[in-house]
């Protein structure tokens, strides 16, 4: 027993040093478990994670068993649910919200033989904890370009949730590409301070529409902003967020609906890959941040409200990002105060992006502290 602890400690040290510890032995049957922060029926964030879970089942059939729990509050409840899952025979546990970060690491310390995968976090305190995220800003860049081209009032909106780097990154990517497409564009940011409150999301969208904003992208989880935009009857546009939200793509009368495109989080490739790695013994601790090239960030079908030439430009940008030829944060880009951030042709490094707490030049207003 003692030797095992010693080995585990050594492995942990090794894991921290090399960034990965190999678990050479494969498994015949895997039970994969998922912890969701919202209901599967949210039509956005949690829905997409669940699609990924179903894809794992689809890919491996009888060799895999999946289990999940919805609407698990972040904090002590999360820890209890994860412990329960670990005790009930799960081999790999995916915890799908930033707020589960400490709980995931705490439970992982108690169950060294079980693999833990934490979405959007950065703490990997044990060799059995991996983290994964998606480069959502690549999608924001594409919809930013569309927004810049489509706005008639030259005012575009961003319905923001919380002032964290993830969201600020999205705002900057969206505005930067809108500005490249249309130098006169102005950005209105509204903070809802919630991930999920359909009525409040609708109110926030309404407030921006009343201010003359005519293209809105949301960083919250429900479809309510699109429903609010739909009331403008073809004079304002929005995007699906996290999920395709295809119900808003076409109106009942066949005309193009308010959702002109969407940013889809596609977790399936990652989940299938990780569970597969556990089965064939190639599983290693990683910190994954994949995007369009790996198929984790996908732009949903663009509808006919977008002019054909804009569609082609957006597609060209998607192709360039997917091929790795273009990074959405390529200089010259200045910070909000006018000081230089990226020089001509310089590309932002991941560290700066993950800790982003500043607006780029041209955005008015302050980030709430």
């Amino acid at each position, binding site marked *: 027993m003692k030797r095992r602890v010693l080995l585990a400690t050594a492995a942990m040290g090794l894991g921290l040093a090399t960034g990965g510890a190999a678990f050479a032995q494969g498994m015949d049957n895997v039970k994969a478990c998922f912890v969701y922060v*919202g*209901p599967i*029926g*949210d*039509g956005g964030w949690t*829905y997409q994670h669940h699609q990924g879970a179903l894809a794992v089942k689809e890919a491996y059939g009888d060799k895999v068993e999946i289990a999940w729990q919805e*609407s698990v509050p972040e904090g002590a409840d999360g820890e209890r649910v994860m412990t329960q899952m670990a005790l009930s025979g799960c081999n790999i546990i995916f915890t799908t919200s930033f707020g589960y970060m400490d709980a995931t690491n705490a439970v992982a310390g108690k169950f060294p033989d079980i693999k833990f995968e934490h979405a959007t976090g950065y703490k990997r305190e044990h060799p059995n904890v991996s983290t994964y995220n998606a480069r959502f800003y690549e999608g924001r860049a594409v919809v930013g370009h569309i927004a810049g081209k489509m706005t008639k009032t030259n005012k575009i*909106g961003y319905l923001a949730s919380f002032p964290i780097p993830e969201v600020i990154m999205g705002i900057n990517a969206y505005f930067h590409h809108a500005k490249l497409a249309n130098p006169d564009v102005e950005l*209105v*940011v*509204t*903070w*809802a*301070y*919630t991930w*999920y*409150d*359909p*009525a*409040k999301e*609708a*109110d*926030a969208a*309404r*407030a*921006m529409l*009343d*201010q003359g*904003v005519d293209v809105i992208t949301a960083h919250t989880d*429900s*479809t*309510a902003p699109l*429903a609010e935009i739909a009331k403008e009857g073809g004079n304002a546009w929005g995007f699906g967020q996290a999920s395709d*939200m*295809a*119900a*808003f793509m076409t109106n*009942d009368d066949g005309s193009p609906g308010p959702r002109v495109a969407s940013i889809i989080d596609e977790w399936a490739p990652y989940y299938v890959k990780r569970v597969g790695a556990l089965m064939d013994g190639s599983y290693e601790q990683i910190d994954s941040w994949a995007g369009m090239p790996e198929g984790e960030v996908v732009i949903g079908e663009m509808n006919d409200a977008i002019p054909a030439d804009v569609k082609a430009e957006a597609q060209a940008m998607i192709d360039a990002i997917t091929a790795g030829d273009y990074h959405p944060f390529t200089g010259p880009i200045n910070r909000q105060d006018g000081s230089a951030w990226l020089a001509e042709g310089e590309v932002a490094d991941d560290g700066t992006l993950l800790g982003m707490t500043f607006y780029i030049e041209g955005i*008015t*207003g*302050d980030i*709430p*502290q």
Partner: protein
Amino acid sequence: MIGSIDPVLLVASLMIASTPILLAAIGEMVVEKAGVLNLGVEGMMIVGAICGFIAAVKTGSPLAGFLGGALAGAAMAALFALLTQVFQSNQVATGLALTLFGLGLSSLIGQGYNGIRPPATARLDLGPLSDIPVLGRMLFSHDWMVYASLGLVAAVWAFLRYSRAGLILRAVGESHDAAHALGYRVVRIRVLALMFGGACAGLGGAYLSLVRVPQWTEGMTAGAGWIALAIVVFASWKAGRVLLGAYLFGGVTVLQLNLQAAGVAIPVQYLSMAPYLITILVLVVISADRSRVALNAPAMLGRNFHASR
């Protein structure tokens, strides 16, 4: 920068934003006037939201949707009435359980209704009134439920103040023993008041899922029922003040988002706090005179009645 907010649009959107809480709060006020504390408003609202949504989608008629929402809310209230009025269970615990039950039940029956759009609720055509320059857009261009909710507030006010039935209902809330001694059916009156409250909460929920958000998402009431409960206390059990409280809360919520969108240089945290802060402030001001508050609260609020005691 504040100048860029159009007050006309602001008032128009605050009326829509406030309607669900107004409906739920006016119903709960009648319930509390009868001496029953039903903390299950949130649960009744969300069940009303999904049942109203399903009814509207199945029939294609928003009217049927609102009817379905009201019926579902009343059914939830009937369950509460059965437990508290017949089986004499604790009202606070039963109300909390009703909320949890409603949230679970609604996501169960809502399976398969995500991402569907309900039939649109038509704007009420008020003819020449809608064409008045400023007031027309502000007050006379809404869907009919907004006016129905205002009518309901007026009706509740008149009922409690001028009608004999309203007097009896208040008597039951003030002293159920005295009312019983006079020969009034305390339990029956309370059950009816509860069903009315449930129907109003269900209507409020249906307004959320059919007009304000228009779609079904799980947990979509997001605490509106609790706000409605607070507004009843805030209003010190007066119908006119319920209207004021609901519009004030809805108004500040909408205003803070408008201020943000207009780029006013007030830190966002203060703006998002504002609706709650102002509610607390007004509560403090209203309850500064303790004796008056005590006079306003129905004396039998939350106390169970049984004829044998």
